[in-house]
């Protein structure tokens, strides 16, 4: 536990140092931040917009916006929350402008570039079962409205605290909790309507 806390503290210090360098105009620092956050940011955007091409475009726009606006960033604030807020604002603009009608559209299957995170599975069969379950869960999640997909990814994939999610969403804590509860209920309803609970457990 102490090791995790130490690693987290070191990570925090590393981010702060990179942000400080970036604010002084060092482009190398943005490269370091890009490396550190690339997977998390891309995953968040993909969960939000569901289309890899759009997520890639927004990913690029987010980093350019960060480079432009980093001087306005208050170093006392949490950089993660600020970065995800920048990405969120761009994603919302895109969703409003280009496809306001498709917010509830189901996720098209067969997304590319998905890689399995290290798994606890011992055998190939267990791995396949886990992958199938994950695919069902991802599909079910994709069928939820964007506001619910967002809160699920921030809580479970980004592992953000509720207070941090509230900052990113610019919403009160009570709203975050309500959205989280509704998103979980919606997700479970969706999974149960697709088949027996054993299939996704």
């Amino acid at each position, binding site marked *: 536990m102490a090791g995790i806390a130490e690693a987290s503290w070191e990570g925090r210090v590393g981010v702060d140092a990179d942000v400080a360098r970036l604010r002084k105009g060092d*482009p190398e620092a943005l490269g370091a931040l890009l490396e550190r956050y690339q997977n998390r940011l891309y995953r968040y955007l993909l969960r939000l917009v569901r289309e890899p091409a759009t997520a890639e475009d927004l990913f690029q726009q987010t980093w350019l916006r960060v*480079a432009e606006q980093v001087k306005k960033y208050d170093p006392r604030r949490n950089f993660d929350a600020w970065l995800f807020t920048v990405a969120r604002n761009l994603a919302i603009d895109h969703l409003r402008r280009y496809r306001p009608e498709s917010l509830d559209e189901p996720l098209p299957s067969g997304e590319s570039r998905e890689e399995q995170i290290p798994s606890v599975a011992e055998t190939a069969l267990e791995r396949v079962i886990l992958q199938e379950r994950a695919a069902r869960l991802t599909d079910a999640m994709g069928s939820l409205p964007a506001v619910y997909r967002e809160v699920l990814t921030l809580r479970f994939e980004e592992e953000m605290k509720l207070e941090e999610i509230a900052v990113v969403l610019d919403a009160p804590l009570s709203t975050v909790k309500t959205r989280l509860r509704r998103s979980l209920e919606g997700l479970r309803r969706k999974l149960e309507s697709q088949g027996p609970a054993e299939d996704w457990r």
Partner: protein
Amino acid sequence: MKDHKKPDHDTLRGWLSLAAAGALEPEEQAEVDRHLGACEECAAEFERWRVLASGLKRLPTPQPSAALVERVRASIVAATAAQAEKRWNQGVLIFLVLFSWTLTLAGWPIVRLATHGVSSWLEVGFTKAWMDLIGYTALGWLTAGVAAMVLTWQKRRERRLA
């Protein structure tokens, strides 16, 4: 969700999804934990939420392609260079404006002295003096403009060669 009354079975059951998400207040979580030890139905329900939450935490992580990351890196470098150039151009412009005015105001008495002699200071015909000043200022600005154009041309050439 904060309630001073002891929550009943239905209330606690409604909290189970948030409990699995680790989103309850400590006192609410304590109530849930106590209830789960006593209610098999809620314990089974909580297990379902817990499995769902665990599945969400273990979802595959989509990763950006290496090509995308490289493209972003290159665009950041280009944008940073463009910003730096913009700042430099603004600095040059400010310098040229200040330089032109300094040259105009500081050089004007010398020009008057050279072209009209000491008697010019006693001249009462302001019209000609103002015309001279305007012409002299225009000359200063023209020089500064030409200098700005040369600098811009040089920067563009450097950018093309880079």
